[in-house]
């Protein structure tokens, strides 16, 4: 039994999981009805469902980002891509109210399918730009993606013409607000992406190659791995994920805001990946961990709002929790305490 708990503790997901449990417990005491899930209007509703729904925004990005980070890179442009994707979709669906006879009918600029494909294609292209800079031109990932992080906000605002575009086209709301079998549709999207990527990385050699590149790029190249191509597509895919997230966000809030949509998403997504046990140094990655990380971050955000912490201390509390999770994951930090603990035992024994 002792052996088992030890194994459990050594798992990278043990401590993040404990933090999540702790957060949930705090909520159980402080927020009334936190755990209540009701069946209302053909769907499950409740704070927990809401947390899961919202954590898909960061979660989907974290999946793509996990791959980028495992190759030893980083992508800080995902927040901007979220804004661009939402802006393009909103602009193309856009539409105006037209009087047809005595009925007001909404005419979209393009069919919804086209708008969605265009938004995702644009995201993919932006990711390919990042990939080109990093893999071919060998620009440091943080600098390469910083370009798009800054420029992307501008692009998004150009698309929206500097304004917030409101989306009136109802079918579009389904992506971020709809439910299937009572469960938010966004969760299905997240699961689909997650399963797809897990299959692609663990049932093919791709996962091994990602890790190999992240640990030692030169040695991987010398072993015959096409590292440039793999790194390139990891950035492309990461931006694609951000594009999907952009659709969810714009659909959920029924509008596109070039300036604020996806604001600071890059930081939350990086945090989610790191909390999930993938090292920023690259190498071994853990996709499920990244999703867990995204859920922790969303739980934290929701908790802060629901227990009524004043908005101005909001970020401070968030940072404290993140600090604690990182500390718990640090072997050195834990060793420090275990050592103290042991010393105390010895002293008391004497």
């Amino acid at each position, binding site marked *: 039994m002792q052996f088992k708990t030890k194994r459990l503790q050594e798992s990278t997901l043990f401590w993040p999981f404990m933090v999540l449990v702790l957060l949930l417990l705090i909520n159980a005491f402080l927020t009334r009805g936190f755990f209540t899930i009701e069946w209302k209007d053909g769907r499950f509703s409740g704070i927990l469902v809401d947390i899961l729904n919202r954590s898909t925004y960061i979660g989907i990005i974290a999946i793509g980002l996990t791959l980028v980070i495992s190759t030893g890179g980083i992508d800080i442009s995902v927040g901007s891509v979220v804004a661009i994707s939402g802006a393009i979709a909103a602009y193309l669906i856009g539409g105006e109210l037209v009087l047809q006879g005595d009925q007001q009918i909404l005419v979209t600029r393009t069919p919804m399918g086209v708008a969605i494909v265009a938004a995702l294609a644009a995201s993919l292209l932006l990711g390919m730009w990042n990939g080109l800079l990093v893999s071919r031109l060998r620009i440091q990932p943080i600098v390469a993606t910083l370009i798009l992080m800054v420029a992307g906000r501008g692009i998004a605002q150009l698309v929206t013409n500097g304004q917030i575009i409101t989306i009136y086209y109802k079918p579009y709301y389904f992506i971020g607000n709809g439910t299937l079998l009572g469960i938010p549709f966004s969760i299905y999207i997240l699961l689909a992406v997650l399963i797809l990527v897990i299959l692609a990385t663990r049932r093919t*050699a791709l996962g091994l*190659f990602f890790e190999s590149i992240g640990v030692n790029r030169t*040695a991987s190249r010398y072993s*015959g791995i096409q590292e440039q191509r793999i790194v390139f597509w990891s950035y492309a895919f990461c931006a694609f994920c951000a594009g999907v997230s952009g659709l969810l966000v714009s659909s959920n809030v029924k509008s596109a805001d070039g300036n604020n949509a996806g604001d600071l998403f890059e930081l939350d997504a990086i945090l989610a990946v790191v909390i999930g046990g993938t090292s920023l140094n690259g*190498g071994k990655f853990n996709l499920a961990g990244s999703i867990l990380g995204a859920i922790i971050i969303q739980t934290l955000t929701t908790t802060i709002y629901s227990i009524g912490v004043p908005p101005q201390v909001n970020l401070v509390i968030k940072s404290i929790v993140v600090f604690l999770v990182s500390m718990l994951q640090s072997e050195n930090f834990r060793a420090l305490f275990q050592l103290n603990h042991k010393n105390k035992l010895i002293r008391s024994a004497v």
Partner: protein
Amino acid sequence: MENSAILSMNTISKYFPGVRALSQVNFSLHKGEIHALMGQNGAGKSTLIKIMTGVYQPDSGYITLRGEKIKVESPEHAQTLGIATVYQEVNLCPNLTVAENLLLGREPRNRFGIAWKRLFTDARALLKEKLDLDLDTTKPLGTYSLAIQQMIAIARSLCVSSEILILDEPTSSLDEAEVERLFKILHKLKNEGMAILFITHFIDQVYAVSDRITVLRNGEYIGTSEASALSKLDLISMMVGKDPAELAASSTRREIKLTLGTEELLKTEGLGRTGYLKPITVTLKKGEVLGLAGLLGSGRTETAKLIFGAERALEGRLFQKGIEINLTAPRDAIMMGMGFCPEDRKTEGLIGDLSIRENIILALQAKQGILRYLPRKTQEEIANQFIQELGIKTPDMEKPVKTLSGGNQQKVLLARWLATQPAILILDEPTRGIDVAAKAEILQRIIQLRNQGISILFISSELEEVAAISDRVAIFRDKKKIAEVEGKDINEHTIMRLIAQEELENAIQN
């Protein structure tokens, strides 16, 4: 020259995971001498210096300074002990002024902060006094040549009352005139009683400036000699292998020589790249070991990397079985049946954090492509097969490969390529930094592979090894191939004489 050792290192040993860096090394430095520390890459020179300057602590052995046993705690401590060090790369800030660089951290101050005027005049006086240099110290450091920067680095390290100066390859980026200028200063310092330790790869420079020479090889102390009493040939022989006379009996191998195929498997025609490697023409026949011999930086590794596609060749042509091929990446070479164990295992070979199993199947998997993923069971079978065949000592194939010893790491790399069933294996220093037993095993394995019909390009700094297992040897010097020996001409002595050609020419002239 006074014969009092100011600093001596006694029976110093240092181990790193998987590598024996130094073993029982003795070394002493006298007051008022310039002492050159020589050895090939990986011989342990920098480790010795790092122990001297407190970067590393020795695992055994001790250091005495002015006759007293000391422990050098840290580089800062070394400075207070009077040991000044200038590292290979100039560790200064090119955008700050000369004076700031010189006196950084100990600027003269007045009540408004730094006393700038005094800073500049102090710095100027200091340079004048110590190095006879008269510079405008208000100019940014970057506006001066590398030689001057190097000298300022020396001056900076000398500010504290130091008696010992250590220079790690100070001349590697300097041109001849700059080197001369630097040497002048070294002479001046030496005459003032400074003990100077000097590391370089350039043999001519060693003779130009040093009084005594100490040679390390493979982490072991080989010997110390007065520079005037040591011929270049002897110096090279100390650096690369045993005494030539001892090695008459390397002919046992020739008996197992098979009827060599005459088929030219690989051929380069003037393959090269300006500034990297002068055009090289070599051929590799089926089932032979072609040794590449030469000193560090002579073009051995460069040749290997061009042939493997790790570096792009910008001139010349490469043929496989008579058909011209064009390599854009190592992958192209691998698809044609090549494998390459690089010189630097850690940075170019191993994927340290990944398991032994993953490291072994990596090249095979890469060759197969992303989609044809080897099932876990096949991976384990392959890994197991090579762990047994090559005698890789590990309790578990899932252990990170970086936890293995140097010899076993090398075997994992070998296994990675053997798993791809290569026709050509390029082995760059496969025996460096590993213990004697593992070395013998690997050499034996190479001969076995050759007998199985694999062509091998074998690079080693140890001429003894090259001579022992090569069917032909190409000899490199100054980034070009200077000769090729074959058959019974292959012995350490011939190779060494060819490398030290200058010496040879001198002998003929006399």
